[in-house]
């Protein structure tokens, strides 16, 4: 008896469906690869000119052959760090609030509100930051730099706070202000990720803690937070990735100076995406290639952070049970 073939041959319509689907996958792959390759090729033209100076130089003069991302990368990372400092407690607190402390009836509404905040465009945040926050936050900056200037990072060199005529412009347009606005932008995303994990903490373990006499905080501390630890870290890294790429709000708020500026409370700062947005019109062909190299560096950094976040979330307890 001849062996019967167990493979099924697709019928006509199914073959069309299969080829269309696989074709779309190929097209998407082609588009993404083309974008990546083009960026890499143009960036390499610039990198050939700058050599290793790209990671050690802090000026940005592509036509002179001297350009490097040290200053802008530092500025980008500083903005991200300031944003995370504000966003992490806010997001974790809100996520805990929604999943544990808020009345059940309004939980869905709160989740919708958080998603709505994630959908607010970044120009609106930029407007608010420019017109409202900038005029009110400089008192905080002045206070912080006066009392905590000894930490070095929070100092504002050149400031004389005891002089009533001291100009306030040195506290405006700073990395601190941009970081706060970006923090408000990334908090909803982080909050959603964390809340999903917190709400999936196993009910049995929760009730066991409560049954043993723990208060609500004790239950949260021993069951919910360890369960959601992966989501907290993953959500933070996701938020950080988003904060590093934020362009428009930072462009509107900060006074951009391409130099190493480690003082977050002082006016002036830079960011790779703002550098690209601002300089693309003024640049020659080599300048555009240099900007692409900087954009590629930002892309690689965000990629690493995103993949790290995905791995941590997937490996955590909360991630293993969800998608």
């Amino acid at each position, binding site marked *: 008896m001849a062996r019967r073939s167990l493979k099924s041959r697709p019928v006509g319509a199914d073959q069309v469906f299969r080829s269309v689907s696989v074709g779309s996958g190929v097209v998407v792959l082609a588009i993404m690869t083309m974008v990546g390759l083009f960026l890499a090729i143009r960036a390499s033209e610039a990198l050939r000119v700058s050599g290793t100076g790209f990671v050690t130089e802090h000026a940005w003069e592509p036509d002179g052959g001297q350009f490097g991302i040290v200053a802008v990368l530092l500025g980008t990372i500083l903005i991200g760090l300031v944003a995370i400092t504000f966003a992490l407690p806010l997001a974790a607190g809100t996520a805990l609030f929604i999943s544990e402390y808020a009345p059940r009836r309004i939980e869905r509404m709160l989740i919708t509100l958080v998603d709505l905040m994630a*959908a607010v465009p970044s120009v609106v945040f930029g407007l608010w930051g420019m017109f409202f926050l900038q005029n009110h936050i400089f008192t905080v900056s002045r206070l912080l730099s006066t009392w905590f200037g000894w930490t070095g990072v929070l100092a504002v060199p050149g400031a004389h706070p005891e002089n009533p005529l001291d100009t306030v412009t040195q506290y405006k347009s700073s990395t601190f202000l941009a970081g706060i606005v970006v923090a408000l932008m990334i908090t909803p995303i982080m909050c959603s990720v964390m809340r999903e994990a917190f709400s999936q903490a196993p009910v049995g373990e929760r009730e066991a803690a409560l049954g043993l006499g723990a208060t609500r905080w004790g239950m949260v501390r021993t069951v919910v937070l360890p369960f959601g630890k992966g989501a907290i870290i993953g959500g933070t890294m996701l938020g950080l990735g988003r904060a590093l790429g934020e362009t428009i709000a930072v462009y509107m708020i900060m006074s951009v100076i391409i*130099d190493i*500026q480690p003082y977050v409370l002082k006016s002036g700062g830079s960011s790779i995406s703002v550098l690209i947005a601002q300089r693309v019109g003024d640049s020659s062909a080599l300048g555009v290639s240099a900007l692409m190299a900087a954009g590629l560096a930002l892309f690689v950094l*965000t990629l690493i952070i995103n993949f790290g976040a995905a791995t941590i979330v997937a490996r955590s307890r909360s991630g293993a049970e969800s998608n």
Partner: protein
Amino acid sequence: MTTLLQPPATELRSELMDRIEAATQPDPYARRKVRGVRRSDALAIGGAAVSSLAMTNLLFFVLTPLSSALAFVSVWYVAFLWLYAVIVSVDEPATVVADRLVTAVVWTLGCLLFVALAFILTYTVSRGAPAMKHLNFFTTDMTEAGPLQGLEVGGIVHSVVGTLEQISIALVLTIPLGLTCAVFLNEFPSRFARFVRTIVEAMTALPSVVAGLFILATWILILGFPKSGLAAALAISVMMLPIIIRAADVVIRLVPHQLREASYALGTSRWKTVWHVVLPTSRSGLTTAVILGAARGLGETSPVLLTAGYTASMNTNPTEGPQVSLPLAVFTLVKFPQQDMISRAFGAGATLLIVVLALFVAARFVGGRAPGHETSRQRRQRSAASARDARRFGARAGAVGLGLVLIGLTLTRTSGPAYATDGYVPISGAGSTWSQNAIEQWRRNVNQYGMSINYQGTGSSDGRNQFRNGTVDFAVSEIPYGITDGNATDPPPERGYAYMPIVAGGTAFMYNLKIGGKQVTNLRLSGDVIARIFTGGITMWNDPAIAKDNPQLALPARQVVPVVRSDGSGTTAQFASWMAKEHASTWDPYCAKAGRPTPCGVTSFFPVVGGSSFVAQSGSLGVSAFVAQSQNEGAITYVEYSYALNSGFPVAKVLNHAGYYVEPTASNVAVGLLKAKINLTPGPSYLTSILDGVYANADKRAYPLSSYSYMIVPTEVSGRFDEDHGRTLGAFAYYFLCEGQQQADVLGYSPLPINLVQAGLSQVKKIPGVDVQSVDIRKCNNPTFSSNGSNTLATTAPYPPSCDKVGPVQCTTGTGGKKDEDTQPSDPAGTTDDPTPTPGGQDPGDGSTTPTTPGAGVPTVPGAPPGSQPVAIDPDTGAQVPVAGAGDTGYVVTGQAMTLAAGDRAGMNTLLMVLGGLVLLLAVVLPPAVGQLLSRRTR
């Protein structure tokens, strides 16, 4: 028989007892309240809040010199937590105290986020309300509206249309591709699918500005397409595609595999399973994912910024010509210093919010809930669909049609801006912000002739670049091609081009300074002082060098904040050229300090030394808006004169080589430019100017930093520039070379002299496709024209008054945007008078000259010689300024109460006050703590 008629007394009593017991004991079957707030809990919170408020109040307003509202709220919050913990700890053990504290903190954090969201939304809507109140805001575009017109003119309908078109195109491109790819990833799992999924996840990390850069470099620069709505839509699609694929992938993966297997078991093919089972099940999630992706793409500004250009008019054709979207309109409108424009920007932002909110609500409503859960509406729909299916099976109807209705109506050629019967086509230009005010006014004026001109003020360097790349039809720049800037030489374009002067004007120094609370309007500066200010040599306004130029102004000890251009600017180039020629000894060392090669010469990018107090802003609007903010006292910038006029701020009078301080009015600029050398040799540099003679012009009326601005026009057809574009450009040139010059004075510029107008008119003939007109120069009404060829404006220019000469007397008249406001001289301290105590002042003779407590009025200087004229003391500097007495028609200087930030100046005072606060705290906290300790011990 008593037993039959009455129950016995014991039974009565037990029934009574039963009733009493039932009334006093809780019903065992009633629901027990497990949660819930006890009265003591509410009182604890309320009590802690009120008492901490009282304590903070005491600390702030009576004891210590702290002042800011934020500090008050923070101290109140910390005190509230502390006191709440203390109150709770009286009754409850430590674990409960920790629980209550954490509850309070978490509630605060949660409410903080939502309060911030509500505040941002209401702030945007309330700031935009003045603009949105007018219906024309939603029905007209910005063609007619200039920066000086009110809110009754102009609107943002062109950006709404642009946004809708761009997002529709992006959705048409990404939805079919994205959904099919997501289906592929789920239905055909393989190594290849996993690879695609990894790449897609990686691409979600692509920053949106890099997506815009990609489209700019490929679609616009390499393939040569124009900046348009289609380019912006492509950039948005590149950004949105990975996001939509990933979201759809997650949703489709959630469809239970049992549903698929049931479908296969019934004998359907793969595609039928996907079409009839998988997609409908995930439909709600897919809709939500698509709509949220659309909301994300809608709000993106940076890809649109790089690829769409800018226009003030409505453009419904996305494939041709620049198109604005709402976020781009917000970003551009907010740069203007006028309040009306800012209200328009906020209104556009509020409109964008409304659109996003509408999409969001639609997502929640149409999408419904997750797969497996249905709303009642979906249940009803499902049963109706089943009934229909039953009928269909019974009737064996014919084949179902697959209809995919594309939303791509916009891919067909829709009409762009109206073609006038004269055959003008829209043209676009970019470049200098120095002359932008003039160009914008001319652009609005030629609208009536059917010419549609789009102009983007992006800086001269960008304009020259765009003209070289062929993405604009004309560029405007102050400096020509071929200048070496630092290490780079600006190469000229490949196609033929010519320079045409368009307007003259002066680069003015706009500043924001106050003496005694009143704005200074008559500042004078010599060239050397200006050079030192902008190279960081002079850092305080009361520097003796500035005082030498202003002998009658008691300038405050305030820091100088130089505001420079951060983009590639022709204004910077003009300024740098003057610095390099006249003050090279100050300019070259500064350039070297900033890392530039010396000799520095002309540069379009102002060098900034890291760590200095320089502020860099983008565009003439950016620098003038920064100086125009009322809190930015001490700021000074270099910008064209018209920006100071529009912002209502004064400009500094600059010392010329004849020893007079002058401001850049139209006549002074005309006089100055009499010494400009125009290159008259035919060739690529024909009509460019050399301004060395202008800087050194020894006429008393000449303004040293006068210059011309040039338009760079093509002289041959190439790329997108054809004869139709040439005809429109030529007509525009004829307009502004002749009639447009009449308005130059009013706008803050200076009209071109007759020789340049004639030369310009001959250049127009070189534009391909131009309708050559023979213009009668005499009908142009140009104020510089005369019958004998001399410059009338220059010959009739008024001479400056003697108080403008270098010397001890200073003119009091205002300049620039504050021409009508005089500044009275402030006498230097010690030459007059009797200090009169002003209201709220301290007792003279207490020996202290600086205020140490908040809320103090103006301190008085003890020991000043008595005199005849009363004076008051400037609270900022302690200098004496005159007060209007009887018969004086001057102004009255009043003191202002100033609250000062706490410093460590009065160290002992602060220490004592903090100790006092601590003692108060202990007095409040100690008794209950001690009582609790004692009661615990006795328990």
